[in-house]
């Protein structure tokens, strides 16, 4: 922050510049458009100077890296100490198919695993249930049982590599399968590192993969917080996700605001359960999108850290500095990938990944160029991983902490995004909180409105998408297809049949009965889910018991 005298002088010089050099330039070469906007349609000024920045001291707004409010990063040395985790989201077909892909990615230098599950698994159905028809393994791996989980991680040392699982509605059951798999391998739970997404609130808002109504779903989430803090201390029991909110059409500001509002809601539920905030807050993690607009994205991550630190310390009274840290994973924007000239997606992904790194991400997934068509083929996935390796080892951006900190534009954007978040927090509060706002369709309508506005801008060519509404070529793209084989499906169905036939029926029945009792009562469900998994209950059976107790959810219809 400049001194008042300096600012006055600066303002005088700025006015002079506007009336001389700038005026001449505009007379000679008018600007390309009347208004410039970000990807989120936020107007952007011609130039930013210290005059645009908040009057609060830098020490309060920025601080040092690794110090409150962590705007510049959560570690003092950031990537000079340790690079971000290169974690490629992968999954298709059977557990064996996906396990092969994991090993391929590890062999090529990825440093963390990330499981994509297929649609039936995401909804808690087994591969052989009628709801799963046509959906086996198409956009992720099918995991219907502990046996599948064992096959998925066969030959992988889960005691040393961390695993992220994108699973929400049935997260508790899938996590129980992972824990039981580790148990069977003899790896103690205290050694396990990883994340379950387990963010049910954004499912109602954006991703739409829910199983039950909000309240029982939230109870299951808090059950995992409680269980994890006692038994799996290095596990992130939630990844509070803006990614899907953004993919569904939200702006950067909405992504930030809704994600943090959800995060604060989880903290409230944890505290209401009777946990101290410091008991579980350090295991909350976040997941953001990395979209096209480089500066807006970087600002979003920086604002997120600042808001979270302040809310955790000042609103919830967390004492442990680890509870103040917003740690996040980032993924480049799937929605930005084009089916036209797909190889150009490599360039988009590079810029998006750069934003995530300049914004201080803890781990990163880079999309493959063929993902507007399919789950990536091997070569496309490798190029995506190489993109991260180039950023890490060739670009030089990892050499210093928060290299863009102090940029007038970036700091201005960071402040604006922060303000926008607080304005949304107030609106959500007025609607009665996050869950009532979901019931009213508030988030859903806000997201749909932004999605439609964006599409209209593309349609009217106010927004140029290279290869789609400009710079178009008339050629068929060549994408090597990746298909799930019939053989994988048959093997999976056969394994389920064998499990159901061979298991100890009495043990299985007793476990499911106890689980039902636990769901009907108010004790923690996790130990009972684990017992059901150990007794070879399938995902569909466990979810089925819960569906009977918890009921279904119908979303408000709007568009």
């Amino acid at each position, binding site marked *: 922050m400049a001194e008042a005298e300096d600012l006055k002088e600066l303002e005088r010089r700025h006015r002079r510049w506007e009336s001389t050099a700038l005026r001449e330039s505009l007379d000679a070469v008018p600007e390309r458009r009347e208004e410039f906007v970000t990807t989120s349609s936020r107007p952007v000024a011609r130039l930013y100077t210290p005059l645009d920045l908040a009057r609060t001291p830098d020490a309060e707004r920025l601080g040092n890296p690794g110090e409150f409010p962590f705007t510049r990063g959560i570690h003092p040395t950031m990537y000079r100490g340790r690079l971000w985790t290169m974690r490629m989201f992968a999954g298709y077909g059977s557990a064996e198919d996906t396990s092969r892909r994991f090993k391929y990615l590890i062999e090529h230098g990825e440093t963390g695993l990330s499981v994509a599950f297929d*649609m*039936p698994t*995401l*909804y808690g*159905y087994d591969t052989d249930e009628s*709801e*799963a*028809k*046509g*959906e086996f393994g*198409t*956009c992720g791996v099918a995991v219907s049982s502990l046996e599948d989980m064992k096959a998925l991680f066969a030959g992988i040392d889960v005691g040393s590599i961390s695993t992220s699982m994108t699973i929400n509605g049935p997260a508790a059951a899938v996590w129980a399968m992972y824990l039981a798999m580790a148990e069977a391998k003899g790896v103690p739970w205290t050694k396990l590192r990883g994340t379950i997404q387990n963010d049910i609130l954004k*499912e109602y808002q954006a*991703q*739409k*993969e829910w199983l039950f109504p909000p309240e029982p779903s939230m109870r299951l989430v808090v059950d995992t917080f409680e269980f994890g803090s006692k038994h799996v201390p290095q596990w992130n029991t939630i990844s509070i996700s803006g990614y899907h909110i953004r*993919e*569904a*059409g939200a702006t950067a500001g909405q992504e930030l605001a809704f994600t943090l509002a959800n995060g604060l809601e989880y903290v409230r539920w944890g505290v209401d359960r009777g946990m101290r905030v410091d008991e579980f807050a350090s295991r909350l993690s976040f997941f953001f999108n990395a979209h096209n607009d480089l500066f807006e994205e970087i600002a979003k991550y920086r604002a997120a850290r600042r808001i979270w630190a302040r809310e955790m310390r000042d609103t919830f009274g967390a004492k442990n500095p680890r509870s103040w840290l917003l740690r996040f994973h980032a993924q480049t924007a799937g*929605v930005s990938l*084009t*089916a*036209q000239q797909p190889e150009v997606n490599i360039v988009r992904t590079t810029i998006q990944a750069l934003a995530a790194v300049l914004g201080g991400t803890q781990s990163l997934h880079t999309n493959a160029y063929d993902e*507007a*068509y*399919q*789950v990536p083929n091997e070569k496309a996935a490798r190029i995506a991983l190489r993109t991260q390796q180039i950023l890490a080892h060739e670009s030089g951006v990892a050499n210093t902490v928060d290299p863009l900190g102090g940029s007038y534009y970036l700091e201005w954007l960071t402040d604006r995004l922060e303000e926008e978040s607080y304005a949304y927090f107030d609106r959500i509060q007025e609607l009665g909180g996050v869950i009532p706002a979901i019931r009213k369709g508030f988030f859903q309508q806000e997201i*749909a409105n932004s*999605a*439609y506005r964006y*599409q*209209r801008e593309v*349609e009217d060519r106010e927004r140029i*998408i290279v*290869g*789609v*509404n400009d710079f178009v070529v008339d050629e*068929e793209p060549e*994408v090597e*297809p990746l298909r*799930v084989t019939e053989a994988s499906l048959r093997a999976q169905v056969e394994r389920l049949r064998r499990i159901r036939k061979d298991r100890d029926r009495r043990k299985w029945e007793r476990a499911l009965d106890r689980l039902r009792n636990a769901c009907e009562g108010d004790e923690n469900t996790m130990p009972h889910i684990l017992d059901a998994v150990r007794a070879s209950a399938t995902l569909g059976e466990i979810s089925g018991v819960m569906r009977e107790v918890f009921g279904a959810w119908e*979303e408000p*219809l709007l*568009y």
Partner: protein
Amino acid sequence: MAKKIRVLIAKPGLDGHDRGAKVIARALRDAGMEVIYTGLRQTPEDIVEAAIQEDVDAIGLSCLSGAHMTLFPEVVKLLKRRKSGDIVVAGGGIIPEDDVPKLKKAGIKEVFGPGTPLAHIVDFFRKAAKGG
């Protein structure tokens, strides 16, 4: 006044990606059509039932999960069985090029991939409703 074109926008299967379906629904509505949006997780039976109940001219199916080869043709088959084969069915989503001719052969009138201009889709439904 001419009868408004009636279109059912439907999400078959488990796929939760509803951004595209909602944008299309809104574009058709803005173009003066009557749009009925089914919401998520509809079976082909649900969709055909809704189409007949709502007396629509056309159905737009959206699927991004890869289950289109199972679900889209099923809708056409059920429509024919219910003697409503005159309802035009189109589809959109993440659909590999190789699947497009197969879907057309199965009675899907048109398949819209990512990046298709909204105006193009609006035109399609306008013509479809006129029996074109």
